[in-house]
Every structure is written in C-alpha cells, then in structure tokens.
C-alpha cells in the first residue's frame, strides 16, 4: 500500500510538471495581455514599465523557470486584473462551485442509480420506459438550452425561484456557503438541476446496464434459491456488483463539473470558478489561467487516486492482487 502511494505521488509530480509546461506555452500562445491591460493611448514609457513589471520582457523559457521557482514556494503569482494573489482569488470562488457541483452530482447519483436499477430490474414496465425516455432527454438536450428554459419557466413565468446569484450565505470553517440557508438552497436549485440532468441520465444508463447484466448471473439465482428477497438481492448483491463503474463515473463527472461548470455558472451568474476562468480568458489574465488549469489537473489526479482507492474497498479481488 505504501509503495503504491509513493508510486502514485511520483506519477502525480511528473504529470503536474508536464501540465505546467503545456499550460504555460498554451496560455502564452493565446495573446499578449499587455494589449488588453494597457490602454492603447498610454505612453511608451508606461507601456515598457508595465511589461517589465509583469516580467513579460523575459524570454518564454526564462518566464517559465521563474514561474516554477515561485511555484515551489507555493506562489502562483498575482492576477493582472484583480491585483491579488491568484491562489486567494481562486480559493474565494471554489466553495461556490464546490457546493453546486456536489449537490448536482450527488443528487444525480442518489436519484439516477436507484431508478436505473429499477429500469434494469423491470426493463419492460411502463415506469422503466418513462425513466429511459427521461434519460434520453437528459443526454441529448444541450445544457444552455435547458438552463434558459428553467429560468424562463420557474423564474420568469412562475416566479417560484430566483434566476441567478448565490443568495444568502452562512459561514462555516471561515467560508461562505449557500447550502446553509433556505434562501441559498432556493438559488442553488435551478443551476444544480441544470447541471445534474446529464449526469442523472448517465447514472440511469450505467445502473440499468449493470443491473440487467448482473440479474442474469448465477450469483442472483443462487441468492434466490437461498430464499433471499428481491429487495435484498438488489441492495446487497447487485448494488455492490455494479458500484465500480458508478464510482468511476462519479469521480470523473465530479472532476469535470468542478472544472467546467462554465455554461451553467454563466447562465445563472453563479460566482464560481467557471465564471472566473471565462473572465480571465477574455482579459488574458495569464496567472489566473495557468493556476486554474494546473489546479484542475491536480484535482483530477486526486480524484483518480480516490477512485482507485475506492476500487480496492469495493472489490476485494483487487486488494489481494495489489498486495501480491
């Protein structure tokens, strides 16, 4: 186990190094931030002073080395636009995205897996057909369109729910959270619904396919022959046997939603990292872009590690193989 962790840690370091280089070069290629930051009618002196202050007069490789040097000390640099440490800036936006993502992905899983299992258990029932129709809908309709329809229906026409922003927040561990207030939940409901529809559809399909397959196995027949109830069989045998793909997709979806909830956050003007990255791209705020993309890579590494660890917890056969 220790050897496995050390191996993964080294792997992660290499991945992060490669990502940092790629991101740095990529962001460099997007455009020159000076053109955006300095007004076109500024004097040549001001211009040059700014270029020097941001370190943009150095060659690319030198800029990269300097960046790495600061990175080792935990310094991602300062945002050009907000003139504050990038890490603080991103850190202040993460809770909003984190809670929205958690609510969306957890909700999609907790609802999608049981419904999918039912659809796999009774594939021919009317309820199952209804569930599958809903999942096709969730798969095929684009997020931005659903977002607009949700706003139009529930905010504009019915006036039940707010159309955007985070609403009231409460403080926990020194961070502002919406999920601690009723008003915050009201604000979170529509964007979370918007984000979760696709994930819900995916969880339904995954659980359904897994259940259909497992129901035909001798494991289920043997449990039935022992007199176990259908509910016990689904809950204790089938759910455990289909959990590996579900955990995998849960991890991936959680990661990608954290990183790229851009569309939903923009539509619902949710002040999360997705909106931050869009703003930083349009203003060519390089340090924010670089730090953000590296954080995303880091985030995925952590998620993959957690997913791998949960495999071992879920399937004892993998445990022994690794120990051997």
């Amino acid at each position, binding site marked *: 186990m220790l050897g496995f962790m050390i191996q993964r840690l080294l792997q992660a370091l290499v991945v992060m190094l490669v990502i940092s280089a790629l991101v740095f070069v990529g962001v460099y290629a997007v455009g020159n931030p000076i053109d955006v930051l300095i007004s076109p009618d500024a004097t040549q002196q001001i211009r040059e002073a700014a270029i020097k202050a941001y370190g943009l007069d150095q060659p690319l490789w030198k800029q990269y080395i300097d960046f790495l040097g600061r990175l080792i000390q935990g310094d991602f640099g300062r945002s050009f636009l907000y003139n504050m440490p990038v890490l603080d800036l991103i850190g202040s936006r993460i809770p909003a995205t984190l809670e929205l993502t958690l609510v969306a992905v957890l909700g999609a899983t907790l609802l999608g897996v049981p419904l999918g299992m039912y659809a796999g258990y009774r594939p021919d029932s009317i309820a199952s057909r209804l569930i599958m129709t809903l999942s096709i809908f969730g798969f095929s309709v684009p997020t931005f369109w659903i977002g607009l329809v949700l706003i139009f229906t529930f905010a504009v026409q019915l006036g039940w729910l707010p159309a955007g922003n985070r609403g009231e927040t409460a403080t926990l561990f020194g961070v502002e959270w919406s999920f601690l207030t009723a008003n915050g939940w009201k604000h979170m409901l529509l964007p979370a619904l918007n984000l979760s529809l696709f994930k819900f559809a995916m969880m339904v399909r995954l659980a359904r396919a897994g259940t259909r397959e497992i129901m035909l196995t001798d494991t289920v027949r*043997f449990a039935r*022959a*022992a*007199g*176990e109830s259908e509910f016990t069989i689904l809950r*204790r045998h089938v759910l*455990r*046997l289909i959990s590996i793909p579900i955990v995998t997709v849960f991890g991936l979806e959680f990661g990608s939603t954290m990183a790229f909830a851009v569309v939903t956050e923009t539509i619902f003007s949710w002040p999360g990292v997705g909106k931050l990255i869009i703003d930083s791209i349009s203003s060519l705020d390089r340090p924010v872009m670089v730090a953000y993309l590296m954080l995303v890579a880091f985030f995925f590494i952590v998620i993959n590690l957690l997913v791998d660890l949960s495999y071992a917890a879920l399937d004892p*056969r993998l445990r022994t193989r690794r120990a051997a």
Partner: protein
Amino acid sequence: MIPLLEVTDLATHFATRNGALKAVDGVSFSIAEGEIIGLVGESGSGKSVTGFSILGLIDPPGRIVGGSVKLKGRELVGLSARELRAIRGREIAMVFQDPSATLNPVLTIGTQMRLALEAHGSVSESEARARSAEVLERVGIPDAARRLDAHPHQFSGGMRQRVAIAIALLNRPKLIICDEPTTALDVSIQAQILTEMRDLAREFGTAMIWISHDLATVSSIASRLLVMYAGRIIEEGPVANVLRQPQHPYTAGLLASLPANAERGMDLVQIPGSTPSLFDLPPGCAFQPRCDRRSPACVVMPELTSGGLGRRRRCHHPLNGGSA
C-alpha cells in the same frame, strides 16, 4: 406415506419466436425423505429446468405450464412469490455447477451466509456467525470461524463449492437440488465432495436430487436413477439395476459409450446421430431416429410403463426382459 416431494406431469415451456420450446414436458417422479436420486441426461434434456421448476425459479420467457409439484402434500405450483421464497433455502435448497459464479465475489463468506440466514427470520450477528461457522466446519472447512471474513477468491475451487454447499445446508432443508455441483471441479476433489455430500445427506436426513450428465458420478451417490431425454423421463429405476440391465435403448447406448466400458484398442462406442432440437422433435418417441430397435409403432409416443422391480421405461421395444 406421503412422499417428501411428488412431481406430477410437470411441463415447463419457453415462449420463443419459433413457438413454445418444451424444455420439460410431462415429467413425473417422487422422492422419499432422505433419499438420493440421480437425474441424468445430456445438455438440453431438461434436467436442470426440472430442478429450477421445483423451486419456481424459472425466468421469463419460461413458464411452468402444467403439472404439479407437491412438497409433503403441499402444492408448490401457483404459490405466490412470497410463499415460494419462504420455501426456498428453508425447505428446498439448491447448489449450482460453478461456485466461482454463484458466490458473490465482493461479499465475505460470513456476509453471504448471514444473508441466507436472514432470509428466513432475523438472527443476531453473533448467532449468525456461530451457526455459519458450525456448518462450514461440517462441510470440511478448517478454521471456519476465521474464514468467515474471507472472500470467495481466497478459497480453492473445491473449498468454494463446500462454502456453497454450506450455504445450502444452513437452514437444514429437507431437500437439496444439486445441479452438477462437481462438474467444474478436479476429478480428485469430485470424489471427495461426492462422498462428503452423501455422508452429510445421511447425517442430516436430507433428500437430494443429483443432476448430472455424468452417469458414473451419479451412480456413485444416488440410489435411484432417472434418465431424461428431450424433456421427458425415459427410464427410471434403482441405480445398480438400471446400470446392469438398461431397458431403454438410449440408456443402453449411454452406458456402452462410457470409456470404462470400452474394450481396449477399440474405438469408443457412440450413439449414432445427435440429440434432436426441441423445436423439431420427431413424431412419437424422440429417440427413434437414432434407435436400432425402432419400428413403425415408435411414431406413437410410448407411455412410461412399469418394467418390474420399481422400474419404469418409455419404450415400445425395451431391452433386458421387459416386454412392451
């Protein structure tokens, strides 16, 4: 005296695109308490479907279309799912062919045994462990109390089947249906398990239906033999008697084709032709196209008639002294 189990005219058909597939078609037999009978036939002869029908474990498109199964005089065909579930595992248990497919790979042996116990009434954790360990010990698993926390993949094939047998024995059923439980095992282990099962059956007073395609295995454990062909019983009688003097030409052919009965240096004897498709059975006796004793009379289905000494056969031209 009422027999433990009485099967009368059992018919199980599978609805298919090409019409009904008559997997079991008019099977009748009975078992006394503590008796071991062997149910022999090739793949597709209906022996396994007979076993599953007794437990009411036929999945759609299959269905028991007629006949009766009586356990100590109580009709099982037509019972509700709940009533059947109370019988499975408690009155009649089943052991399958491949223990690595029947046991759930992600649950510990102890958990699987507890689920089988809980299916028939609530038990405390410690009570379940004690009873499970006791039965595991009985089927020859050393250090049983500690092995409860092991997973199936940590056992050898033979040990795994012993675990499956222990699960079947947990609730002290009156009858165990064994569907080729030794086929997937090494030959040396096969003999061990056979002997142990026979001793266990004797000790617990459990009756057994031993389903197999292997005449040699069956004859070493069963006292009575039923031979199936194309969904029907074609011969029945005490094992030694049937083996010495088969009355149905098909049984005679099976016996002649056993390698043990072959003459050294000669080719093995084969029954000419192949098993007919259940969709396309010949008129009358299903075996007649392959039979060297056939006559025009064979296009009429022969009845299962008595051949003396507790023997029955379904043939117009029986061998060994039975005149039709």
